[in-house]
C-alpha cells in the first residue's frame, strides 16, 4: 500500500511536470521585500538579466561601458579599496572589523567565513539585526576593473551564480530582505 502511494505520488509529480528546483530556475531572479511596521509592503521580482540592462541606463558620469565610475567627491578611491580588499583577502578566514558600542549595545562585525564576506550588525537594545552576505568572488569581480572603475557587469555575473539571501535587515519597525532565486 505504501509502495502504491509512493508510485502514485511520483506519477503525479511527473504528470504535473514538477522538476528539481535547480532545473526550474535556470535564470536567476532578484527579489526584494520590504515590510514596514506601519503596514506598508514593497515586493520587487525581476530577472537579474533585466537588472543588468536597466543599469545601462545609469547616468553617463557613473556608467561607462562595463564599469562604474566613482565620482570626484568620493572619499575613498576605488584603487585604494581594491588594495585594501587584496590585503583582506590574503588574511583568509578572519574577523576584519569588530566595533562594539556599549551605549547603544550595538556590535558591528565584518568577517570572512568560507567564500563569503559577512557583515553583521547586532543591536540588542534597538532590537535591530543586519545580515549582509557577499560572496568573495563577487567582490573580486567588482574590483576586476582598473584605476577608479568598478566592474559592475562582472559582479552581476557572479551574483547570478548565487542563490539565497544577500541582505537581511530587521529592526523593530522594518524588515528588508534581498535574495536571489
Amino acid at each position, binding site marked *: 500500500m505504501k509502495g502504491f502511494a509512493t508510485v502514485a505520488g511520483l506519477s503525479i509529480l511527473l504528470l504535473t511536470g514538477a522538476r528539481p528546483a535547480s532545473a526550474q530556475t535556470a535564470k536567476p531572479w532578484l527579489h526584494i521585500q520590504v515590510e514596514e511596521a506601519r503596514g506598508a509592503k514593497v515586493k520587487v521580482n525581476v530577472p537579474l538579466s533585466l537588472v543588468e540592462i*536597466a543599469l545601462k541606463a545609469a547616468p553617463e558620469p557613473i556608467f561607462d561601458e562595463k564599469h562604474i565610475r566613482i565620482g570626484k567627491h568620493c572619499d575613498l578611491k576605488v584603487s585604494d579599496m581594491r588594495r585594501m580588499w587584496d590585503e583582506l583577502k590574503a588574511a583568509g578566514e578572519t574577523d576584519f572589523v569588530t566595533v562594539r558600542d556599549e551605549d547603544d549595545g550595538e556590535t558591528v562585525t565584518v568577517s570572512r567565513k568560507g567564500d563569503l564576506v559577512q557583515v553583521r550588525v547586532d543591536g540588542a537594545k534597538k532590537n535591530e539585526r543586519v545580515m549582509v552576505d557577499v560572496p568573495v568572488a563577487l567582490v573580486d569581480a567588482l574590483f576586476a576593473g582598473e584605476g577608479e572603475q568598478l566592474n559592475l557587469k562582472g559582479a552581476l555575473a557572479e551574483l547570478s551564480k548565487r542563490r539565497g539571501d544577500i541582505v537581511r535587515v530587521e529592526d523593530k519597525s522594518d524588515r528588508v530582505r534581498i535574495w536571489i532565486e
Partner: protein
Amino acid sequence: MLLKMAGAAALAASVGVASMDYVFVDVKPDKDAPRIILPVPLLAAELALAFVPPADLDVPIDDEARRYLPIARELIGELREMPDAEIVRVEDGDELVTVTKKGDVLEVRVKGDNERVSVNVPLDSVEEILKSARGGRLDVRKALRGLHRFGRTDLVEVVDGDQHVRIYVW
C-alpha cells in the same frame, strides 16, 4: 492632389482592410456630465499621413533620448522573454500598486481609496514603435503601424470618484 489621393488609397490597401482598428477615447468628466466617446480610426490617421511631406514624417530624436533607445529595445525584448510574473507590488494603507507582466502585456494597476488606474502596455507594439526610431530619427509612419499591433485591448482606464476616462482599441 489626385496623385496623393491615389497614393493614400494604395497605402490604405497596403495596410490591409483587416486593420480597421479604432482608438476610442471615452470620457465622463463627472457624475452629471454627458459621456463623450471619440472614435479615431487608425486607418484614417495613416491616410492622413499620406498628405504630409515625407521629410516631416522623419523626425529627429535628441541625443539624450537616442542614448536610451537601444537600452529600451533591450529591456522590452527581455520583458517579452521573461515568464509571466508580478514584478512590483506596493501596498501602503488603502493604496495598492502592481506591475505585472502577463503574456505580451505589461499591466500597471493602481487602486486607491476612491480611485482606480489601469494601464496596459502591449510590449510588441512598443517594440515596433521603438524599431521605427533608428539612425537618430523617428519614422512616424512606421510608429503608427506599431499602434495597429495593439489589437483589441484596453490601454488606459482612470476612475477617480465620478470621473472616468477610458482609452481602448477596438
